[in-house]
């Protein structure tokens, strides 16, 4: 018996590798603590926007906003993604290598250290830069140093994942990488590539400027580098969620993966075409030529194709499974799906939310529509639909089986019921909130501003009912956060002991995958070519024809 099969057998008998489980549990715990704190800040923000409370002088709105964004967008999503994919790598590739586990812990330490620095600076009101380190607003240099450590931590995790995958491929020549690890590889490649941009921005532009070594900064260039990262980061979390839709959900409902090749093509397409989508965040920025803005429309919409493929594939899976279980008629198969199972319900509603979220995103891609909604509450609504609903709810759905799997416990019917209630509260609150935000945005209510009536201007007073809805949504969401946090702690430490499955959907019989999908070298080269085509021309222009540059501003 070879070492590999021995390892597989041991894994089968003993379940999860305990040391790998500890690593993932640590990541997940940080993620959900961040969810709790970020949710609290979200509540404060929501009821302030509703005009119900006035924040004290020592805790202003912009500080709360920065903390809410950072904790949920960076810490919650980032830590969850790394923990989840590391457990996936461990499960599908026969346990993490000792050095990979060590890299995972190094990454954990560096990211935690960085996060603590960042949070301290935010709490000291030294970094209320609205969480997107977006010059010319300048935070305390320690804030940026904290971000550097977070990025270093991410890199350690990326390299760990690559070493794990390379090692597995060496030992399993000619085989396809298991599908969940395939997703993980794609996500970590994107994570490494996009953080390179932000590393250049922080190291070469922002740090010297925030330390006072240089007087001015090239705002245009910094923002462009930022969005090459920021946009991709959003899509990495989306890709993490999609991996669960493709791989986990079919198993939960008792079906199979529909088409392995298509799934892999979606991953490859997302890797190649993602980074260049960043430009659409700067549609109304001056200093980017029309040609480049025109090009970005194609680059951004290109990402829509894998999403449409995903929508098609997932409904095929659900329909086939429903019919196999005896569902008749056009929609009869829907009745056969396990609606009472939170492991299915949460990701399913997340998928549904992605339809309007994606449509809104497409609206924002075009110049004219974007001109109407840019910097209004519309964008905030969009973000709550995508990250708050599609991604976060999928993550919640994952936590109901991943955490018991890791801690050697089981999901009890009571906790499942609580999960269903949580899912309903969260969905209702997010729908309410997203509707109110989108509508208020269309009426012109700006984002990233504290509650104000602009001197009782009639238009601004017209936003008030929507703001009240946002406040109600925020309260409900906090209830959702509290339930979720309770569930996570329960599943991690108190649920009854037992065996939980890591649900990975099997391939359909006869589904053959082309080996060409494994040529990661080619995909990375294509990604670099696409990125170069998109960025070389505008970035050279921004450097050579640079504006005079901006001194630092502290607006709070």
């Amino acid at each position, binding site marked *: 018996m070879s070492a590999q099969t021995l390892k597989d057998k041991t894994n089968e008998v003993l379940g999860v590798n305990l040391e790998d489980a500890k690593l993932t549990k640590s990541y997940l715990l940080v993620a959900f603590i961040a969810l709790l704190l970020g949710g609290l800040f979200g509540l404060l923000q929501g009821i302030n926007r509703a005009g119900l409370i006035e924040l004290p002088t020592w805790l202003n709105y912009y500080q709360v906003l920065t903390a809410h964004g950072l904790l949920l967008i960076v810490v919650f999503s980032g830590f969850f993604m790394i923990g989840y994919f590391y457990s996936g790598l461990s499960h599908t590739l026969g346990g993490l290598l000792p050095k990979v586990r060590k890299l995972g812990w190094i990454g954990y330490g560096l990211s935690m250290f960085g996060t603590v620095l960042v949070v301290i600076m935010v709490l000291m009101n030294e970094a209320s830069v609205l969480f997107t380190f977006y010059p010319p607003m300048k935070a305390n240099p320690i804030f940026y140093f904290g971000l550097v450590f977070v990025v270093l931590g991410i890199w350690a995790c990326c390299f760990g994942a690559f070493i794990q995958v*390379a090692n597995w*491929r*060496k030992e399993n*020549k*000619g085989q396809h990488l298991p599908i969940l690890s395939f997703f993980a590889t794609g996500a970590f490649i994107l994570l490494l590539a996009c953080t390179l941009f932000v590393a250049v921005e922080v190291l070469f532009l922002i740090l010297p400027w925030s330390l006072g070594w240089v007087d001015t900064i090239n705002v245009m260039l910094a923002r462009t580098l930022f969005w090459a990262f920021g946009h991709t980061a959003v899509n990495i979390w989306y890709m993490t969620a999609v991996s669960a839709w493709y791989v986990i959900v079919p198993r939960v409902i008792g079906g199979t993966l529909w088409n392995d090749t298509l799934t892999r093509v979606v991953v490859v397409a997302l890797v190649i075409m993602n980074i260049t989508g960043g430009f659409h965040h700067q549609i109304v920025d001056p200093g980017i030529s029309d040609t480049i803005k025109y090009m970005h429309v194609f680059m951004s919409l290109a990402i829509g194709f894998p999403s449409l493929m995903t929508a098609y594939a997932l409904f095929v899976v659900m329909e086939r499974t429903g019919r196999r279980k005896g569902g008749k008629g056009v929609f009869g198969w829907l009745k056969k799906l396990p609606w009472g199972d939170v492991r299915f319900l949460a990701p399913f509603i997340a998928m549904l939310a992605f339809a309007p979220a994606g449509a809104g995103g497409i609206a924002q891609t075009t110049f004219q529509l974007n001109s109407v909604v840019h910097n209004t509450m519309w964008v905030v609504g969009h973000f709550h639909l995508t990250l708050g609903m599609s991604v976060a709810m999928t993550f919640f759905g994952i936590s109901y089986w991943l955490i018991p799997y890791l801690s050697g416990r089981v999901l009890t019917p009571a906790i499942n019921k609580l999960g269903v209630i949580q899912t309903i509260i969260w969905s209702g609150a997010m729908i309410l909130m997203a509707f109110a935000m989108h509508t208020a945005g269309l009426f012109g209510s700006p984002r990233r501003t504290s509650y104000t009536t602009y001197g009782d201007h009639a238009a601004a007073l017209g936003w008030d009912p929507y703001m009240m809805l946002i406040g109600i949504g925020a309260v409900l969401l906090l209830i959702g956060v509290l339930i979720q946090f309770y569930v996570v702690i329960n599943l991690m430490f108190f649920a009854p002991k037992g065996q939980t499955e890591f649900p990975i959907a099997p391939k359909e019989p006869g589904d053959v995958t082309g*080996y060409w999908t*494994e040529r990661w*070298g080619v995909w990375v*080269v294509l990604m*670099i070519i696409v990125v*170069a*085509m998109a960025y*070389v*021309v505008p970035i*050279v*222009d921004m450097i*050579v*024809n640079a504006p005079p540059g901006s001194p630092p501003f502290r607006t709070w």
Partner: protein
Amino acid sequence: MDQFKLGLGLFIFLAIPPVATFMESVMVIHMHMQMPMLIIAGLLIAPFFQQRFPRFFEKWNQNGLPGILLFIIIIGYWMLPRTMDEALTLQSVEIFKFISLPFLAGVPLRDSWKKLTDFQKNSVITFFTIAFLGMGALYTLAPDQLCNNYLIIEQLTLGWAFLLTAVGMIVYLLYVAFVDPSQYE
């Protein structure tokens, strides 16, 4: 012959006047997109000639070296700033571009590449890496306009594109030096 049709289609598409004019209007697209695409058209067309005239290729390009030499000469010629300029001002040079890049560079490249040893292949890539670094330095450091038809900003952009391409090739060379694909596949 599907590849042949694809290559011919690409060649005709690139030669359509509005397409050619657009691609030539931006320096970096002219050099780093139109020219490589013409070569790619030639690569796709190559099997047609290889099947039609097998004796010719056997006789004149037995070990691949004459073909790759011709490729290097043609590419070297089109890397000169002056030739790019002339392609825009003299129609005869423009026609020469559309003939030389697919048929005198693309076709021989396809025929030669398989015949070359790994060492020879990597030497060719190393040669172009050095050449691209040189071109990058030339275009980014030159204080004057090197092409009458393009502004200095476009020249700089092209220079950076050359440097980045060279960086990509260095990464590739390091990759083949340190990674053995047979260990993985």
